[in-house]
C-alpha cells in the first residue's frame, strides 16, 4: 500500500517538474519563480507586479494552452494504451491497434486535400475530420469483427490491422496526389500540433475528461480479464459489456486526442510498460499512474521537440519514437529478470 502511494507521489512530481519546465522554456525564458508569481497574481495571492507585461500574455495565451493540450494528449494516449494492453492481453497493443490513428490520419488528409477552410464559424475542421475518420474506422472494424452477439478479440485485432492498412494506403495516395498539402499532412501524421490557443483545449476537454475518468476506474474489470475471457466470465464479469465499453471509451479518448495533436506514436505503448515494470501489474493503479506519467512524458517529448532545432519545431511524434525507443530499451534491459507481464 505504501509502495503504491509512493508511486503516485513519484509520477506526480515528475508531471509537476515537466509542467514547470514546459511553461518556462520557449523563445523567451521565464523562470519558474516568475511563473509561480504570475499564476499567484492571477488568483490575487500577491499584488506587486515586477515582470514584463508580455510575460503574462506568453503564459496565458501561448504556453499554458499548449502545455495543457499536450498533457491531455499524453494522458489520453497512455491511459488508452494501458487499457488496450489489458483488454487484448497483448504487450504490443497500443491506442492505435484497432484503427484510430489510420482513421484519424485519413480523415485529416481528406480534409486537407479537399482544401477545406481552416475553420468554419470558429470551428476548426481538420480536427473534426480527424475525429470523424477515427470513429468511423473503429466502428467499421468493430462491425467487421462482430460474430452474432460477441466480438472475438483476435478477429478485432486482425480486422483493425487490415482496415488500418487500407486507410493508411488511402492516406498515402491522397498525399501523393496533393503536392501542396504534403508537408501539412505529414506533420499531422507525425504528431505535429495543428492548432493553438484555448479553443482545442476546451473543445476536447469534455470527451477527454469523461474518457480518462472512465478509464481510470476500469482497472478491476481489466484485472479479472487477465485470466482470459472464459475464466473472467466464470468469475462473474459481464465480459462482452466490459469489452464494448472499454473499446468505445478508449477509442473516443484516443480519437479526441489525435484529432488536435496529430498521430503521436510510441508513447501509448511504452508508458504503460514503464509503469508496469516500475510499479506492478495491478490495473487499478496501472491506468491512473499511466495517465499521469503519460501527461508528463509527452510534456518532456514536446519540450525536446521545441528546443532541438529551435526556432523550428519538430513534430512531437518524432521525438517520442526517437528518444522514447532507446530509453524504453534501456529500462527493458534493466528489468528483464522481473516477471512484469
Amino acid at each position: 500500500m505504501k509502495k503504491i502511494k509512493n508511486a503516485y507521489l513519484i509520477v506526480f512530481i515528475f508531471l509537476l517538474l515537466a509542467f514547470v519546465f514546459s511553461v518556462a522554456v520557449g523563445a523567451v525564458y521565464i523562470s519558474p519563480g516568475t511563473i509561480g508569481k504570475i499564476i499567484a497574481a492571477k488568483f490575487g495571492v500577491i499584488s506587486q507586479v515586477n515582470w514584463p507585461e508580455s510575460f503574462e500574455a506568453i503564459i496565458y495565451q501561448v504556453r499554458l494552452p499548449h502545455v495543457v493540450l499536450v498533457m491531455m494528449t499524453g494522458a489520453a494516449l497512455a491511459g488508452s494504451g494501458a487499457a488496450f494492453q489489458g483488454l487484448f492481453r497483448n504487450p504490443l497493443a497500443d491506442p492505435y491497434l484497432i484503427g484510430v490513428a489510420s482513421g484519424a490520419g485519413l480523415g485529416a488528409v481528406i480534409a486537407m486535400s479537399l482544401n477545406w477552410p481552416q475553420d468554419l464559424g470558429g470551428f476548426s475542421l481538420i480536427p473534426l475530420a480527424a475525429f470523424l475518420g477515427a470513429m468511423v474506422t473503429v466502428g467499421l472494424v468493430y462491425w467487421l469483427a462482430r460474430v452474432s452477439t460477441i466480438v472475438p478479440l483476435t478477429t478485432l485485432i486482425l480486422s483493425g490491422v487490415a482496415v488500418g492498412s487500407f486507410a493508411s494506403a488511402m492516406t498515402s495516395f491522397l498525399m501523393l496526389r496533393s503536392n501542396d498539402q504534403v508537408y501539412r499532412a505529414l506533420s499531422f501524421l507525425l504528431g505535429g500540433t495543428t492548432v493553438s490557443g484555448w479553443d482545442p483545449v476546451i473543445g476536447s476537454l469534455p470527451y477527454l475528461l469523461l474518457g480518462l475518468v472512465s478509464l481510470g476506474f476500469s482497472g478491476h474489470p481489466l484485472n479479472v480479464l487477465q485470466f482470459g475471457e472464459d475464466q473472467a466470465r466464470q468469475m462473474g464479469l459481464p465480459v462482452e459489456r466490459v469489452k464494448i465499453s472499454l473499446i468505445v471509451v478508449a477509442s473516443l479518448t484516443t480519437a479526441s486526442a489525435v484529432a488536435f495533436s496529430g498521430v503521436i506514436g510510441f508513447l501509448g505503448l511504452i508508458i504503460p510498460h514503464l509503469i508496469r515494470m516500475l510499479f506492478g501489474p495491478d490495473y487499478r493503479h496501472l491506468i491512473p499512474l499511466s495517465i499521469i506519467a503519460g501527461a508528463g512524458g509527452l510534456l518532456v517529448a514536446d519540450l525536446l521537440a521545441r528546443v532541438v532545432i529551435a526556432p523550428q519545431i519538430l513534430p512531437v511524434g518524432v521525438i517520442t519514437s526517437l528518444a522514447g525507443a532507446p530509453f524504453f530499451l534501456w529500462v527493458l534491459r534493466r528489468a528483464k529478470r522481473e516477471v512484469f507481464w
Partner: protein
Amino acid sequence: MLDIQNIHVSYGSREVLKDISIRVSKGKIVALVGPNGAGKTTLIKAVSGLVRPTAGMIMVSEENIADLNEPNRAKQISVVPQAHQLGGAFTVAHTVMLGRTVHMGWLGAPSEKDRQRVQWAMSEICIEHLADRRVAELSGGEQQLVLLARALAQETPVLLLDEPTNHLDMKHKTDLLQLVKQLAKQEGLAMLMAIHDLNLVSLFADQVALLVDGELLHLGKPKEVLTPKLIGEAYQTNVDVFHHPDKGYPVIMPQSGE
C-alpha cells in the same frame, strides 16, 4: 446441489452432448470420466455458462442457470480451471482476491468480509506463506492450489473442477484431491470434476459419470462404473480391475497388449 437435467449441446450441426442428466448432492464429488473428446470439457463449459445448451436445464438452488446473467451465475457456480491457464503477474493474494469479483463492487475495493474470506480460503488450502509471491514463480502444483483457493473465495454452493490433477506429480495429485474431498464434506459443496486418472477417481469420487461420444454411458458408484466391461467399452482398450486387498476399492491397470 447441482441438477443437470437432460441437456443437449451442439457446436453448429454437430451434437456434442446428448441428453445428459447428472445430479450432484451437497458434500459429494461426482467424477466426470471418459476418453478424449467424450464431452467432459464441454459439459463443464455448459454448466459454467460458457456454452449454451440447446435443450435441457441446469438447476442450482432452484434456479435454471441459463436464465442467470454472469454475476448471478458466478454466485452459484465457481470453476477451478487447469493451472496452465493462470496468468502470472499478479501475486497469490491478489489472484485469490479476484475470486471475490461478484461480491466486490465495480472498483474492486475489497470489504472486510472479502478480506476475511480470502484469508480463510488461503489458510484452508495452506498457501498463506505464498501470499506475496507472483503466481508465475510458483510450481504447477502450487498454482493449482491458488486456483482452488480462488474458487473457494468465490463462495458458491457448486464447484466445477476441470482436470485439476493434470501436470501434477503423484503426491500433489493425492494431496489436492484429499483437500478437495475434505472441503466438499466440511463446506457442503457439490463438486463436479472432470478427471482422467481412474485410480484417483476410485479413491476419491462418490459417484462416477462415464461419458462416451457425448452420451452418458453409466452413472453410479466407482465400484459399479469402474469395471473391465464398461471401461473397455468406453475407452476401446482392455483393462484389468483388481480390488485393493484391505480397502476394497477398484484398482485399474491397462493391459499391455501382448
